[in-house]
Each structure stands twice: as C-alpha cells, then as structure tokens.
C-alpha cells in the first residue's frame, strides 16, 4: 500500500521539484516539497517522511549533504536519495559515506526511479509490519510492564489478578532483580486501590531509627532534628498499598512494631500520643528466604505468618530462559530510544550469548547488560561482540551464582562426584584437585554414600 507513505522532495529549482512531485503523486504517494535545505529540515522536524529526495547542489546555507545530515540527526533511519545533475565519483562517494541510501543522476530513467522507490517502500512496509507484530507480541506477553511467556510467571499473573482487590498481605520472595517491585505494583494497579497511593520503602536502606520514623512518621521534637511533624509511609499509603522491600533486613524491635500495625491497623507516630488508624494493604518483599530466617531465629515467626498470607515466589531469570529474547528485545527498543542510539535489534549470536548466560542479577542485570552494550554499539544490530563483557565476567567468576535451594552439603556432594567422574574414579587425583587429603575424601565419600564411580 503506497497511499500511507509520504515523500519530501527538496530542490531549489521549481521545475525539477514540481515535476518529481507530480510524478510521485501519480504513483500514489503523498508528496510535500521544500525549496531549500532549511525548509526541508523544518518539515522533517514536524514529521518523518518515508523517503527524502534531496538535490545535491543547493544555494549556500545548507547544501544537499548538509541537509541530509540534519535530517538524519532528526530521524536516524531516514531514507535519503541524493539527486544531482553534475555526477562525479567523488560526490557519489561523499553522499553514500554520509548515509545517503541512493544516489541518482538527473534526469533519471523512470523505470530506475520507480524500482528504487519501490524497493525502499518494500523495506519500509516490512519494518512497519515487523514493528506492529513485535508490539502485538509484547502486548500478548505483557502484564503491567512485566514481560513473560513462562508458565510459572503466567500463573503468577493469574494469581495477581485474583488477589488484586483483596486486603490480605502478600509476601513476594525472589532473588535480586527478579521484579518483586513490579509484581507489587501490578497487584496494586490491578485492584480496587489503583487510584490510591502506591508507596514503596526499602527497609535495607535505612538505619533502625530512621526507618521507624520513615514508616510511622514523627511528631515535632520527637528527636534531635525533628523540627516539624512528619507523616510516615503508612499514613501516605492510606487507602492504597505499602510495599516494604527487603523486609528481612528489619530489626527485631521494628518487627514487633510492624506486627502490631498489621494486627490492629493502628500505630503511633514516633514521639506521639495520638493513635492513628490507616487502611493500608501491605506487600512485603524479600530476596532472602524468610522461612529460613525464621528457622535461624532472625525473623519473628508470628510476623512471618502475618505477612505470608499470600505467597508469591518469583523464579530467577535462569528458570525462565525463554523470556530472555523477549525481555532483551524490549530493553533494546526502550533503551535505544532513551540513549539516542541507532541499534534497534539483536543478532542471533547476541541472543545466543544472552540466553546462555547465567544472570545471577536476573532481569535487572539483563537490562544493565543491554544498556552497556548499547552505549558502546555503533551499528543498527547488537551482535555477540557487543556482549563480550559478559563472557569476560563469567570467566572471572563474577557470573557464578549459588544454585537455588541447594545446601552446602549437597553442593559438596556434587563437586566431589563431578571431580571423581573427571578423574575416572582416581581418588588420589581427585583429592589433589579438591585440595584435601585422600583420607578426608574417603571420609566424605562414605558420608555421602559414594563409590569411586558414583553413588552407591
């Protein structure tokens, strides 16, 4: 379909300008004209055209090449066709080096120009179709800014929809960068409280006293520096949702205070006598396993039970590798725009590197990696070389992550078994590789029920 495409013809000679415009109009394009480079740039700033026909030789001020460069500054992907009546190899080389898509000599053969325009429009049509399909795909796998087609994540999306309008507390657990805050926001914005405040506070960032004042507010003069009354996050979130991020880091005293608020929905400001009632839905998030913290005695069990009414465990990125291409493409699209970079897609090699990487920092690490690759990229496609730093980091051991839910004993057992396999059951060699005595290795093998060739 040509009718949707707009073309700008830039030529200081009226007869050239008008004859090309009329000819393109017959072909079904919507054509605008500009009689100078300056006018062309003004028009390009107002809207992007599918094709720019720019005369090379125009009066001083902005010649054809300068006009093209200005247009490309506005629209990095602009298709510019440079036209000239004075063809030389030098001008052609300059035009192409500066980014002209094509170079034509006036007068042009109609067949040639028609094929040229047709070819550019065909690519534009494919790019547009590609963009529409990508948007559709992203929308299909998108839930409140969270992208996923992983079955576990889809289950979480369903659960979020179900619980969104309840008042019950929610405990979101998952590794760093798995999107705990995004899920908390999704819960808030999917439910009845969407029009009320969503307030997030990181419990890890503040010392005990500060956090107490941050959560509950304080009265004037409550402590040195409390020069005026301050509302706390609980009050700010009244009617809405309060996210307590990194809840596992709060002190025992605050655990007691928090338990009281959750039970009674009432609290005192620091230094205050007036009891304040709030209607707040609390969502807690933690990267550490709270159940283990309860077992270790560092987290109150009664608070844990209060928080853990609805439990959401977010999988690590390694557990949802199928989402990596989807997420990486979305990051490239958003960040290339934000950073003003030309790159708009990932090569197959780059995707392979990303899918194979272990991502100890999860989705946040992936986002940072895409940003880093974009900053140093030069072309329109990010390839595996742009992500070479991931291989280097993995090589230095920074990429190693402790397997989820695996005890130290289990890790030891697996390391011993792998080493014995590598040494074909040679205990002496295996002990040397592990840096322990043979007797210690025998001892461990006995403990884990292993023979030289595997588990007995």
């Amino acid at each position, binding site marked *: *379909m*040509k009718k949707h495409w707009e073309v700008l013809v830039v030529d200081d000679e009226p*007869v*050239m300008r008008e004859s*090309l415009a*009329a000819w393109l109009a017959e*072909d079904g394009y919507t054509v605008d004209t500009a009689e100078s480079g300056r006018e062309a740039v003004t028009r390009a700033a107002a809207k992007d055209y599918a094709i720019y026909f720019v005369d090379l030789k125009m009066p001083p001020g902005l010649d054809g090449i300068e006009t093209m460069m200005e247009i490309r500054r506005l629209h990095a992907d602009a298709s510019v066709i440079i036209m000239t009546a004075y063809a030389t190899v030098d001008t052609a080389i300059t035009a192409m080096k500066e980014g002209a898509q094509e170079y034509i000599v006036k*007068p042009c053969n109609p*067949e040639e120009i028609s094929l040229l325009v047709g070819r550019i429009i065909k690519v534009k049509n494919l790019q547009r179709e590609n963009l529409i399909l990508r948007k559709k795909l992203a929308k299909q796998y998108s839930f409140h800014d969270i992208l996923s087609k992983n079955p576990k994540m889809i289950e979480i999306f369903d659960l979020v929809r179900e619980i969104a309008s309840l008042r019950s507390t929610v405990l979101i657990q998952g590794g760093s960068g798995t999107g705990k805050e995004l899920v908390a926001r999704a819960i808030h914005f999917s439910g009845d409280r969407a029009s009320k405040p969503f307030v997030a506070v990181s419990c890890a960032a503040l010392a005990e006293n500060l956090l107490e004042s941050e959560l509950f507010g304080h009265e004037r003069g409550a402590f040195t520096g409390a020069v005026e009354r301050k509302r706390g996050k609980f009050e700010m979130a009244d009617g809405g949702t309060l996210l307590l991020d990194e809840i596992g880091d709060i002190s025992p005293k605050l655990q007691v205070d928090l338990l009281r608020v959750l039970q009674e929905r009432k609290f005192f400001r620091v230094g205050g006598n007036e009891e304040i009632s709030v209607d707040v839905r609390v969502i807690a998030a933690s990267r550490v396993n709270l159940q283990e913290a309860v077992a270790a005695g560092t987290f109150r069990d009664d608070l844990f039970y209060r928080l853990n009414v609805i439990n959401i465990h977010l999988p690590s990125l390694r557990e949802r590798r199928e989402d990596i291409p989807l997420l990486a493409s979305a990051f490239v699209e958003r960040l290339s725009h934000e950073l003003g970079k030309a790159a708009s897609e990932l090569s197959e090699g780059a995707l392979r590197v990303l899918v194979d990487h272990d991502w100890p920092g999860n989705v946040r690490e992936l986002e940072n990696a895409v940003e880093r690759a974009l900053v140093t990229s030069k072309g329109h496609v990010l390839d595996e070389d742009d992500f070479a730093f991931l291989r280097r980091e993995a090589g230095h051991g920074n990429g190693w992550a402790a397997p989820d839910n695996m005890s130290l004993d289990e890790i030891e057992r697996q390391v011993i078994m792998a080493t014995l396999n590598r040494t074909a059951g040679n205990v002496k060699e295996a002990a040397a590789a592990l840096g322990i005595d043979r007797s210690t290795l025998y001892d461990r093998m006995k403990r884990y029920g292993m023979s030289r060739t595997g588990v007995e």
Partner: protein
Amino acid sequence: MKAIRLVRVGDPSPDLVDALVVPLAEEFGVPCSIDVRRIDPLFAMHPERQQAHSSQLLAEILRDDGGGDHLLGVTSLDLYIPILTFVFGEAQMEGHCAIVSYHRLRQEIYGLPHDGELLESRLVKEAVHELGHTLGLRHCEDWECVMASSHAVEGIDLKGWEFCPACRTIVDQERTVSAL
C-alpha cells in the same frame, strides 16, 4: 467527465488519432471527438534533448478551459519532464487535461519491425491511463488494470486497456456526478 476532445499536438498520424475515438468513448461512456485545434509544439522543444516538455504542452492545451470536456493532447513527439529522461504522457491530476505520446510506443524505437496493431493498442492503453489520472486515479497495484504503473512498453503490453473493478467504480462515480 461529459465528453473527451482529442487535441493534436504537432503532426500526429491521423489514423492513430482516429483509432482512439471509439475505444475512449466506450471505456469512459462519454462522446469522444477530434478537436479542430492543433498546437504547434515548437515553444516546448528542448534544443539539446530534442524532446518536448510535456508540462508546458499541458499548460498550452489548458488555455482552452474545455467547457466541461476533458482534453487529451496526442503527439508523435518524444515527451519529457525535467527530472526524468522521458515520459509516455502526463496528466493534470483531478483536472481535465492530459497528453500522451506514441513516440516510444513504436517498435522501431527498439530496433524491431513496425507493428501498427500493437502501436494502436499501446496508445489506447496510455490514453485511457492518462485520462484516468484526470479523474483522480493513482497508479493501481493490480498489474492487469490499465492504471497499473508502466515505465516500459513491456509493462504496457502486459496490462489490459480496461479498469479493474476498484478503479472502474471511481470512473463510474465521476461520470454519474458529471451527468447531474
């Protein structure tokens, strides 16, 4: 469109001009006749290119407002517009004037023996095509439609001289409006 008048530009073959009358009348469903006026194209000739500037000839034909008729210039001269090496014809988009040349429709141009029937067929297609532009029709994606874009005789030979259903609808609507 109420009627079509054919305006001779230079000295086109009377037989070829005559050959346009019936097909154009049938295709557009309006009377078609040969105008008494003949235009001297000398003023529009480019001395180096040895071609006639079609836009200037269109402007000359337009000195007659047509009185509601559509005017089609017919010429044996090679036509050009400044940006292109040649054109088969040119039309005033959504206007009432067009021009068509049969210079490059002749087999002799391509080193082939004369073929009168083929030349007539190509000229009719180009004449219908240019008049189609005056009714607001753009190039059609249907390669068999007379409004399909063709920049070489091979393309003209491929398409028919009739409008596709979509273009036909616009032509018929235009005729109905003009008849009111």
